[in-house]
């Protein structure tokens, strides 16, 4: 397990990670509202054919998020 923080946008399809923190405060609130808390596990389900947006599974639901939004989510990758 690597401990360095990555941006969610840097991960690849099938990768799993743990939410660490958010770089943008209002973005953080939006994600908290949807149940995506620090400590939750995110799975990258797929990228849209043009590389954006990204479909992720977190807290029992599938979310669709743009790449520039995913840059604000700092995560720790897990195997």
């Amino acid at each position, binding site marked *: 397990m690597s401990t360095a923080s990555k941006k969610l946008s840097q991960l690849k399809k099938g990768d799993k990670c743990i939410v660490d923190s958010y770089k943008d405060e209002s973005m953080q*609130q939006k994600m908290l509202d949807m149940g995506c808390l620090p400590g939750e596990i995110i799975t990258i389900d797929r990228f*849209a*054919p043009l590389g954006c*947006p990204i*479909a992720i599974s977190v*807290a029992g639901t*599938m979310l*669709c998020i743009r790449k520039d939004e995913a840059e604000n989510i700092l995560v720790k990758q897990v195997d």
Partner: protein
Amino acid sequence: MQESKKKIKVALIGNPNVGKSSLFNLLTGLHQKIANFPGVTVEKKTGSATIFNSTTGEANHLEILDLPGTYSLYPTSPDERIPFEVLCDPKNEDHPNVVVILADGTNLKRSLFLASQVIDLKIPTVLALNMMDLVQSQGIKIKPDELERRLGIRVCPIIARKGVGIEELKQALINDIPVPITDVYDTTLIKPSILGGIRKELQLKSNYAALQIANHINTLEQFNLSTEQIKKLKQFFEGVEYDGNKIQSFESLERYKAIQQIIDSCVNVADQKKVSFSTRIDRLLVHRVWGYVIFLCILFIIFQSIFSIAEFPMNFIDETFTGFIDLVSNLLPKGVLNDLIVNGVLAGIGGIIIFVPQIAMLFMFIAILEDTGYMARVSFLMDKLMRNFGLNGRSVIPLMSGVACAVPAIMSTRTISSWKERMVTILVTPLMSCSARLPVYTLLISLIIPSTYVGVFNLQGMVLMSLYLIGFIAALVASVVISGLIKTKQKSYFIMEIPVYRMPRWSNIGYSILEKVKIFLIDAGKIIIAISIVLWFLSSRGPGDKYEKVNQQIEQMTDNAENTEKKLLLESQRLEYSYAGQLGHLLEPVIKPLGFDWKIGIALVTSFAAREVFVGTMTTIYSVGNDENLTVKEKMRIEKDVVTGQPRYTVAVGWSLMLFYAFAMQCMSTLAVVKRETGSWKWPIIQFVYLSALAYFTSLIVYQLLK
């Protein structure tokens, strides 16, 4: 049964995709009203229900408000601001007596986040625990009694799709619902000097309401507070450090901790991780190749249906209505009133209901796509592509539907959540060549383009296709320009839930179609009838007595074969002498550089009602002539320019006119619908001006280059 005096105001709140519309339809049936919330273009759905107490038989009247779907009371979009304002401002005109929170039993944690916020506002609350069938099939065990005890509110397990548990929920609503006593998360320790001050000043029922107001202290315009009160509230912040964002996220995290404890005590989740049905479908439906192929096929089916299948009911309506108009015209005594009713009002109504089949059909498809969960996948597939033009993944359906008709297309932009992207889509949709332009295009093409073949392709067909293509490209270019011009303070997020696939709920789809047809008939209909009466006046009255003289001559004529030719001639003269005709003459100097004369000027004025009226008007104007066997097209073709002696309809004039119709906002129904959808005349006026300017200058350049 007893007469009752009670009227309970109920507000329905819940996350998106939890079945809120199903529950709303179940509770209110057809007693629904749709309007906008004051000051914003967010749809406000209200309905009424009468519930009889199962023991006393007493009738209770409920007024139910369907609040826009939201994940929390911290708003990030105009839609989400509504639940926040309605629930946190006790003086809001929609502030309810009772709140029904609809929760998703399969995702209780997130549902309880919103629920706990409402509970902490101390408004009497009932939790409707939905999707109990899925809860069971997924092996989740929920103890409703324990949940009731921990939350301190009534919990009703339901299955909204199947109508299970609704009666119990209804009975719960009419019994006295206590104000929740304990906070799910106690906020009294947070900045007590500020929150306590606000709470006391406004006499709020809860500390949480004070916290909500404190966090939005600079955006309280919609609250029923005087400027003095707001000033007073702001004084509490003096000398105290207060970071609203930090408090908000701290409070949210603590709230989740409290919720987790509740969930641990009443929910058992079975750990099963099979590849779900949805994931398997998604492998195909959002595939990099097949995803687009399937989406194109679906678009094609929608497009074909609103284009060709809708034609049958439209023709039927047209014929029936024409028959009805004839009947009314013969029944009523001749005169101004008859003329006004038949050619003004009834013609206007006819022009409105003709749209109903297309609107119903488009919204049937859209409702199915939304309800099954496919629409979210369309956004996912198309977002990047459309964003290059300042549009949204969901702009594809309105734009494509615009090829059939801009009216239902613009109504369908409601699915676009970002305000700016929605406005851009509305503004450019009329550039897509709609079916009303087809008669204009075909007439002009057959006039100026020879029916020859280039290889296997018919030249006329190629020109027609190029006109559609020009409209599409213009729409994309306009989007880029407009999205650069519209400024918005509001930061919008694309983040949205991709729901699992489900079977469509046919009754919901029925309600959705009814709702859209009603909105169009009532809201847009009023404006269309008004404009239609103005146009009637312009073309059936004239300045001076010239118009009246010709009109009298026509009315005194008897209908017989010999008279036909003369009558047509007089009718064309009558149109020239009318206000519309005079306007045509007045317009001539302005439109001359485009290659248009006063005759086209008249057609431009009258076809504001609908573009295809151009053909009808040209028919009337060109009834002049001796050879009655010639069609309008032939008469237009043989007409000579008085100055040059060349044919009047040259290639230059033809293209200039076609491009004018491709771009100009020649459609009152579209303007009426834009007014309805944007809530003010500002946007339809902007749209009218920019499209007219675009049409004028394109035609000017093209005519001057080609002539």
